[in-house]
């Protein structure tokens, strides 16, 4: 398999990566690096990780053939790697439980996490509950509003959710706030970063845990289609963790295209999107502890981004993906909100699968590509999460009056009760 450790040099992937951290974290990061290095060299560790994910979540997750949509589109056959079936409903669980095992090795007992869509927050809170850690989650005020159900569950899971009112009140501000917490609490706390970004070793460590997706998928694929490579593997790219997870299984397949789907938002003309790699919209910069392509202005101030999917609405991107993009291995697409909602509806209605809005970006890219390919071609798409969490957003996007009535009635009931 393609080896993430072989391409890294001092925490860099080509020009990208590094660890731009306050000096106060130097020791903590060094400890983390060595704990991670020891763990990954210990064959027991990966085994314990797989066992945990196989008994607490439902790994290996299956691969589902989208029979109807493939037929409708008349081109390539589309297959999904079903991360939506995971405990907590997304691939985020993989990373979080991996880091949880590492925390046990490091003897830390408090989790700090940032979250955008809330999926990583729910996953972190879940891990903390299960492993007996304390847990503090930082979440931008706008995301708290957009993803209240996830906030509700995090709190039920016993996590303290801190609403971040700084900056653009979204994911990037939550990252900063989490970092600030860590800078004061590193003795007992571990910062469970939710995606393949941040200072070294996070991009690598998160990708390592998420490689369980690609490892499984590769094995499953070889059983399903012996000797044949997928025509392309496709994943949505927020920070890049589910993408890195799936891609690692296929980067060494030279005939297989590697495609990332970023948030096209309202289109790439203005700034209401989060496409960093697609059409080279991002420029090199350093923030949140690492060097990568960011959406920023000439002074290097991070821009306000937009996506219908809270989990893709982020200014930076995994340095490993920036590198893969530079060397031409990764192709990037950026379907718009409108295309994404259409892909979501199609997947629900034709296949009975409710994808997360994030994952629907990967589907939109697949549905673009499939009709241009022969029916013998095969696409493997990462279905990174389920869409239940997005009910408020989807109901809004689809303008469901019965839903609005229900919410209005519920609000009235609450008012009477008070």
């Amino acid at each position, binding site marked *: 398999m393609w080896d993430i450790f072989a391409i890294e040099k001092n925490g860099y992937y080509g020009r990208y990566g590094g660890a731009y951290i306050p000096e106060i974290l*130097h020791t903590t990061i060094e400890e983390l690096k060595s704990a991670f290095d020891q763990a990954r060299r210990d064959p027991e560790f990966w085994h314990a990780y797989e066992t945990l994910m196989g008994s607490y979540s439902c790994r290996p997750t299956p691969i589902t053939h989208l029979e109807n949509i493939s037929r409708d589109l008349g081109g390539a056959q589309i297959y999904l790697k079903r991360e939506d079936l995971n405990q907590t409903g997304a691939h985020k669980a993989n990373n979080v439980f991996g880091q949880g095992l590492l925390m046990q090795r490091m003897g830390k007992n408090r989790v700090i996490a940032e979250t955008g869509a809330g999926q990583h927050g729910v996953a972190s809170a879940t891990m903390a509950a299960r492993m007996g850690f304390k847990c503090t989650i930082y979440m931008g005020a706008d995301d708290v509003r957009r993803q209240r159900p996830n906030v509700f569950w995090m709190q039920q899971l016993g996590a303290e959710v801190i609403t971040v009112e700084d900056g653009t009140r979204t994911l990037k501000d939550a990252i900063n706030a989490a970092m600030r917490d860590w800078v*004061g609490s*590193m003795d007992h706390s571990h910062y469970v970063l939710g995606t393949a970004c941040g200072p070294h070793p996070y991009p690598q460590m998160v990708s390592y845990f998420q490689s369980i997706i690609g490892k499984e998928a590769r094995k499953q694929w070889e059983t399903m289609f012996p000797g044949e490579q997928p025509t392309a593997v496709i994943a949505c790219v927020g920070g890049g963790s589910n993408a890195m997870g799936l891609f690692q299984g296929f980067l060494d397949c030279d005939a297989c295209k590697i495609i990332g789907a970023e948030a096209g938002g309202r289109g790439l003309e203005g700034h209401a999107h989060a496409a960093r790699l697609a059409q080279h919209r991002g420029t090199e910069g350093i923030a949140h*502890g690492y060097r990568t392509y960011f959406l920023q202005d000439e002074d290097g101030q991070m821009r306000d981004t937009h996506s219908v999917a809270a989990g893709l609405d982020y200014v930076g991107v995994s340095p490993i993906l920036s590198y893969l993009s530079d060397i031409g291995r990764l192709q990037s697409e950026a379907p718009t909100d409108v295309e994404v909602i259409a892909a979501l509806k199609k997947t629900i209605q034709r296949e009975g699968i409710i994808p997360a809005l994030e994952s629907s970006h990967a589907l939109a890219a697949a549905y673009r590509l499939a009709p241009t390919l022969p029916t013998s071609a095969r696409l493997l798409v990462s279905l990174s999460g389920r869409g239940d969490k997005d009910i408020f957003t989807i109901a809004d996007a689809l303008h469901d009056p019965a839903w609005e009535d229900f919410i209005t009635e519920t609000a009235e009931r609450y008012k009477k009760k008070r």
Partner: protein
Amino acid sequence: MNLEQHIRERLKKKPVLVMSHLICGYPSLDDNRQMLQIMHDAGVDLVEFQFPFSEPSADGPVFTRANQKALDAGTRVADCFELMAWASSKFSFMPVMMGYTNTVIQYGEDAFCQKIAACGGRALIIPDHPPEEDTQLLAAAKAHGLCVIMLMTPTNTDERLHTLGTKASGFVYGVARRGVTGAKTAFDTGVATCIDRYRHATSLPLAIGFGISSSDDVAFLKGRAEIAVVGTAFLTAWETSGPDAAKQLLAALT
């Protein structure tokens, strides 16, 4: 005279220098000019000009908000340079640029250092830039006669402190405690031990920052460190009680 020599020169007149701090563009560039006058009048020795950044992850809540408001008000990097140049031409304290790596690399490490030097700046404090990261910052600063200030922190090992000491120039910024800017620090034997460790790792002048807010704090530093850094305390006094209160605070500290 290089920065270190300048500092040593000043130390002949008083036991502890003061480095104060402002965020360019907050509350406004006009306020900044008034602040600088006050700092000058109070006899401040060094002033950190923080260039606002959208991702101030090493700052505490007060500075984070100020960074954001400065940007919301339209503050550009060019405005920061201008403010620094204006202050250099008018006052005798030593301006120091403080900010985040991205601000520097977007401008270009070399162009940025050249510009800072041209504006009278003497050093750069970049809290998210460890010395081993591979930007051109250290080389560019050297080329333009600027110091890149190393931060020493309570969590560093002796070995690490030694490494930082060998890379330092101008002065060393010793962080008094864990955490970000803005919270109170209890100046006690814990801090004293920390300072001893920093002292051991460098012969450069030692600035101590994070949480200095009273003359007692400065008194505590006497004989232990050379520079007291006054950051959040000044801004908080300004925000809550106005220029006069900020002036009084500095008077008490210097």
